[in-house]
């Protein structure tokens, strides 16, 4: 990867992220609060359904949900948006030479910014409300987050590149994410599952990331060494494969979009 080149375009990446953030909230009275409304409402509805109607007995369920759903949203929205990272910037790519990598990177960083903002506001509130003090295990968050970003970036590279040639990928991603949501232990605790189902859930790479976040914020422990090893190898693999596909296609982007 031509890292120095992409690094020299960091101002552009920053501006693209800022542009998307500005455009999202400009002219709306409540602005950034809308970004909180979506996860809050989701948590409210799921909490009601799962604790009152289905009688799930995970303690502090809304807090548990919050810890899993914010990183999920980051992941899912990054992937959805990256279907348009190259295709929607066709006008630019055909007229200016620039390292096209900046677009998927900006997409992921834009969603990362939203994730971190939501987390910074909601987590302290929830932690106070549910008497779940944050412990020193929070230090592990930065490692998990970094690996989660790398993992997401790899998939975004892949999706952004493939969508240029097959526009179906957008619809496929949408449906695939819906399926993946239920295969990820976000609204259920993986520990209450029977052994056989637990194996199935861990076939989904994202489960390792979500349970790591839950370890750190909810169970207040650090993810185990096996878990961390899995995170390292999956994010490395994702970025390597995603970027190989992306860079082998990228010379054709200007002609195809």
């Amino acid at each position: 990867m031509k890292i120095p080149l992409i690094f020299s375009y960091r101002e552009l990446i920053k501006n693209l992220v800022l542009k998307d953030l500005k455009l999202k909230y400009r002219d709306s009275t409540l602005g950034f609060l809308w970004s909180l409304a979506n996860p809050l409402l989701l948590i409210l509805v799921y909490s009601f359904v799962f604790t009152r109607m289905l009688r799930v007995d995970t303690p502090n369920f809304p807090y548990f949900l919050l810890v899993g759903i914010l990183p999920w949203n980051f992941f899912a929205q990054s992937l959805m948006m990256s279907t348009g990272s190259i295709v929607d910037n066709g006008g630019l790519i055909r007229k200016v030479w620039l390292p096209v990598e900046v677009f998927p990177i900006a997409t992921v960083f834009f969603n990362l910014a939203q994730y971190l903002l939501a987390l910074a506001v909601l987590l302290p509130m929830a932690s106070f409300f549910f008497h779940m003090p944050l412990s020193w295990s929070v230090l592990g968050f930065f490692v998990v987050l970094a690996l989660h970003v790398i993992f997401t970036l790899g998939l975004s590279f892949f999706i952004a590149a493939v969508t240029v040639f097959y526009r179906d990928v957008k619809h496929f991603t949408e449906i695939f994410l819906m399926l993946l949501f239920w295969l990820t232990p976000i609204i259920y605790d993986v520990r209450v599952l029977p052994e056989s189902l637990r194996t199935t859930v861990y076939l989904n790479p994202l489960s390792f990331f979500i349970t790591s976040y839950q370890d750190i914020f909810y169970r207040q422990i650090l993810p185990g060494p096996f878990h961390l090893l899995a995170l390292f190898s999956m994010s490395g693999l994702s970025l390597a494969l995603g970027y190989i596909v992306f860079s082998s296609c990228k010379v054709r982007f200007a002609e195809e979009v």
Partner: protein
Amino acid sequence: MSPLIEIVNVSKAFTIRHNRSNSLKSSFIGIFHKRFRETKETLWALKNISFNMTPGETLGLIGRNGSGKSTLLRIIAGIYQPTQGQVRFPNGTRVGAMIELGVGFNPELTGRENVFLGASIHGLDRREVEEIYPGVVEFSELDSFMDVPIKNYSSGMHARLGFALAISLNPGVLLVDEIFAVGDEAFQRKCIQRMEELRAKGKTIIFVSHAAETIKNFCERACLLDHGSPVFLGAPSKAIEEYHRLLAS
């Protein structure tokens, strides 16, 4: 003088796809139904283009619509990869392509925000953008409109901002594609004047235009393209003559 740009036997083929399938479904159906099958045709947009440019030279590219001028410009800018041949620059040469004005401008953002975004699209860092910013404002004469979203600009104002930015990027080699057809006459004169200044400063410029007068006045050499082949390369007045003959035939 050693050449700044070496264009060596550059050819470019485009694949024209009939019934082009951009979805899995149509690819799949194409296996069974001939009618839906994608058929490919190769179109050579450029054939064996070779020339060198010395630093400070200005070259005009002329030719009919579809003769390959813009494709050549894009290949020199690195946007397209040549199918055959090579474009060589000394290391670290910054090539600025003005293929369209205001590329990447977003109507919802203010003039100032768009200048910062637009400049970073061309690879400038924060410090460089801040350096050129006053010049952009001055040239565009939009001082009191920089905090207004550009969706509220008139098309002339939009073009002025785009040109002011493009001209301030200060690349080593400037590629200009037919962008003077904007703004009123006074602004067009101002643009030409600015280009003259750049040329006087020794900037290397490749210039695409249909306007015979501009090519004659501005360029030291001109290249006439027809159906992707270089038909003539030499004195601008001679190139224009050839071009007119081509149009008449």
